[in-house]
């Protein structure tokens, strides 16, 4: 009985004793703790890898999205969503792209198209610039120039390189401007999926593979060298992003050209 009371007494008195350690105790403990945690480094590398891949994937998605877009207005809707992902810089360049679509002065286009239509419908042989201009009112008044005329324009447009007429230059110019004229009327650009777009994912895949390989190399480096390579890794990340922006810009430009010149 007394024994238990002693146990109780001592437990109650000393069981929860707190003694403040000497001030240098933590320093002594810290000096024994692992200096650099591999795990922490790997976590950061993993985060960087995730960033690179997700950035790549985001741009791939954007590319797909933009190629498949049906109108300018829809594209404009996409812009804020990309900015939200923190890739503003890349997108500013893209935003400027629609302006490139308007290739020349609309008045010139109209003139050229009409001129070409006129020359096609009326005078297939040698016509000079002045003659075209003269033919213009003819076409406007001519009841025969109608939908079929326009279709003919398109058909010939496709076969354009083979056509050898004296006013080749005028023809080419006209062909280039057929589509922009339509843009001007509707104020929208209609994109059709093209061969280029279908090939894009594969190309992009190789880029991603390249990036992945680089990242893997740097992870190996990071194991040997430690923290310093994080900077390099970031540089790679930036390069991949920049590459994607560049490719994206190029692709949009190409698509526009393809539309203008199918």
């Amino acid at each position: 009985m007394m024994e238990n009371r002693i146990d109780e007494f001592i437990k109650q008195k000393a069981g929860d004793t707190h003694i403040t350690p000497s001030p240098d105790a933590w320093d002594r403990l810290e000096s024994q703790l692992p200096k650099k945690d591999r795990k922490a480094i790997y976590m950061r590398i993993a985060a960087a890898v995730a960033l690179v891949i997700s950035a790549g994937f985001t741009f791939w998605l954007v590319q797909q999205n933009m190629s498949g877009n049906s109108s300018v207005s829809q594209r404009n809707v996409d812009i804020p969503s990309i900015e939200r992902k923190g890739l503003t810089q890349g997108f500013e360049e893209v935003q400027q792209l629609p302006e490139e679509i308007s290739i020349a002065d609309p008045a010139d286009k109209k003139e050229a198209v009409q001129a070409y239509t006129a020359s096609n419908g009326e005078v297939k042989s040698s016509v000079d610039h002045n003659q075209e201009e003269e033919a213009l009112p003819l076409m406007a008044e001519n009841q025969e120039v109608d939908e079929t005329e326009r279709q003919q324009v398109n058909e010939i447009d496709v076969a354009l390189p083979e056509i050898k007429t004296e006013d080749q230059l005028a023809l080419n110019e006209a062909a280039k401007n057929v589509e922009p004229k339509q843009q001007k009327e509707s104020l929208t650009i209609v994109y059709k999926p093209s061969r280029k777009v279908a090939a894009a994912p594969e190309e992009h895949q190789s880029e991603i593979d390249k990036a992945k390989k680089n990242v893997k190399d740097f992870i190996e480096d990071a194991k040997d060298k430690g923290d310093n390579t994080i900077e390099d890794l970031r540089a790679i990340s930036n390069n991949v992003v920049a590459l994607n922006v560049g490719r994206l810009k190029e692709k949009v430009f190409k698509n526009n050209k393809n539309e203008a010149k199918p």
Partner: protein
Amino acid sequence: MKLRIEKSVQENEWIDACLKNDRKAQRALYERYAPKMLGICARYIRDRSEAEDVMIKGFMRVFEKLETYQGKGSFEGWICRIMVNEALGYLRKNKSMYLEVEIEKAEREPDLNKIDQMMQAGDIIKIINELPVGYRTVFNMYAIEGYSHKEIGEMLGISENTSKSQLSRARMLLQKRLLEMENMLDQKVEGGYDGK
């Protein structure tokens, strides 16, 4: 209840951060538990600086083993067990633990109520520290940490009976010592001692 939940959330955050070798979290964990852990080590190890070394090693072990903490039971309890094991490891290495000391039975039981008013935790720890190491260890483990004789036997590599006999001898010594304290206090109180 709310406080308890918050505390455990904070603990979990610390643990997660410590697993990433986050110095701040490690330090926070240390600051939170070091005084109590040093209190434990000081009960097992008489020399204070030795006790502190053991506590530091104990924290090393805590950080090393943190991955294995399953979240079962209290985190503090988990750390306490690691500290006790560390202290036992130290004692095993440095001392021959099981001396048999002839103990005369105390002439009477000490008046614990009287001593209670006069004694501080530090005084009790001093008394525990005066015990021979074997008695001290078993007494600490059984009476304060709450291990069973079976567990103590396994942890110290002794039989249950040895553990029991060490405990009863520890109690006899403590009883005797407390009685001495009581007598001493009586004298000092008469002489105007305020008990501090």
